[in-house]
């Protein structure tokens, strides 16, 4: 019974932020326009590269276009986040109000993030559909049901992984009011090393190997490999193991940061 009530509480938070996200329509539309510009630039780049010969780095045209457009949708889902507000909540003392409410702050921020992700996901699907229609792009869909299942599972793990990373960075707000800079650096690094704009296997082998030791390739590149059915079963199993390892490790670290942070939280600014 308590579980259902808890679910309703966080569903309500999700719904509130969904409404808030769509309330400022001009800002929302401009934000989507900006995303479309980035997509257009990378679509044009790959289009020009594939115009010279039918394939590029073992990707044929449908595969590469599916990667570029698919990763754009995944980026809008995985990288959409409002965790930057965590540091603000801490630094301005707003966290006190949440600590007094009957909510779990971690689940609260996750619900807030999910609403942001849903809005971005729907918008991104529409944008990609329009772009595909205008330029006559054909997607390469997975042919096996199992590929869909693995893809969706890897995506769920990727969302969790990114949220945990961002939650940890947000918790830096307990120790410094300057977490914005390191967060900016982390976001840029993750976006590049996740394969958000291009498949990572076009990079030199040494860099690919180095990147695979980090969690970032498992945010976009790994799910897209599964979607394109380019990953053999051994790679899928190994990928899930790595995702699981990072999620457990980061969850422990996030809890450690949170408990230590709340212990020394002084509610300055509230």
């Amino acid at each position, binding site marked *: 019974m308590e579980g259902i009530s808890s679910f309703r509480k966080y569903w309500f938070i999700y719904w509130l932020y969904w409404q808030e996200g769509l309330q400022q329509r001009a800002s929302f539309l401009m934000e989507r326009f900006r995303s479309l510009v*980035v997509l257009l630039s990378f679509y044009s780049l790959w289009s020009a590269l594939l115009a010279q*010969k039918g394939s590029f780095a073992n990707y044929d045209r449908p595969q590469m276009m599916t990667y570029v457009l698919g990763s754009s949708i995944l980026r809008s889902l995985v990288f959409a986040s409002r965790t930057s507000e965590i540091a603000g909540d801490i630094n301005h003392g707003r966290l006190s109000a949440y600590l007094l409410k009957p909510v779990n702050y971690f689940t609260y921020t996750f619900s807030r993030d999910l609403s942001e992700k849903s809005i971005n996901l729907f918008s991104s699907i529409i944008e990609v559909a329009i772009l595909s229609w205008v330029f006559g792009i054909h997607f390469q869909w997975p042919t096996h049901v199992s590929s869909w299942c693995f893809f969706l599972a890897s995506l769920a793990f990727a969302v969790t992984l990114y949220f945990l990373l961002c939650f940890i960075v947000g918790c830096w707000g307990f120790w410094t009011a300057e977490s914005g*800079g390191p*967060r900016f650096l982390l976001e840029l690094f993750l976006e590049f090393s996740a394969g958000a704009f291009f498949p990572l296997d076009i990079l030199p082998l040494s*860099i690919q190997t180095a990147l695979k030791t980090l969690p970032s390739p498992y945010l976009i590149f790994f799910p897209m490999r599964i979607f394109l059915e380019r990953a053999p079963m051994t790679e899928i199993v190994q990928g899930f193991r790595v995702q699981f390892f990072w999620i457990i490790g980061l969850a422990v670290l996030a809890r450690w940061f949170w408990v230590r942070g709340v212990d020394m939280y002084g509610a300055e600014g509230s």
Partner: protein
Amino acid sequence: MVKKYFRIWVQLAVMSFKIQTGHVVASGGYLLGKLVRIAFFLLFLASIFKHTQALAGYRMEEVALFFLTFNVIDIIAQLFFRGIYGIRALVREGDFDYFLIQPVQILFRVAFNTVDFLDVVTVIPVLGVTAYVMTRIPHALSLTSLLIYSVLCINGMLIALAIHIAVAALAVWTQELDNTIWIYRDVMTLGRFPVDIYSTVVRQVLIYVVPVAVMVSFPVKGFLHQLKPSDWLLACLMSTSSLALALYFWKEATRHYTSVSS
């Protein structure tokens, strides 16, 4: 007159510098982020050219020059016009009214309200790499091509100035449009690649509507001796007309300004 404005700029720059050095962690993160972004993109370009010989007819060094020129113009524009990014807040919080009564050109005061020293640090390695890449294009490198490149870069910065003034005018006029400058920044990113990769419609937009191609692609094409006399004419026309239009727009916006919050 010039001395007075230079003194004001130095004063504002010193204030900005003190603020930035007071936030070492944040500034360090932003600075590293900017450098990492450029380094990663160059790595991406190098990786692409491991699999192909050319992009839209350009070799790796030439494509890198397009990307670096985009950075040079973008960073210098941010360095000099960073204050424009905060104009909406200035208007909303009443600081704009305070600037209006100061004995200094209001546009100058707003534009230089913030001087981003992180951009100073960023532009130095970018200029260094640009110079290095130019030496890797020996068939184009000459005193004349360097002069052409510099003149067209300055022309590009004039257009950037015009766009920033127009954005500032819109903010004063409407007290809205927080995202406008960011839309310009994102459209500007289309200039990271040679304009030749885009479809005809997009290319026309990038030449005549938001002249990113004139700002970024033209200097590189000038360096590579690929510009026709008509392109030169177009470049001059775009910068002078956009600047004149933006200044007119700014004048009208400030004339209609009736104070918001002071």
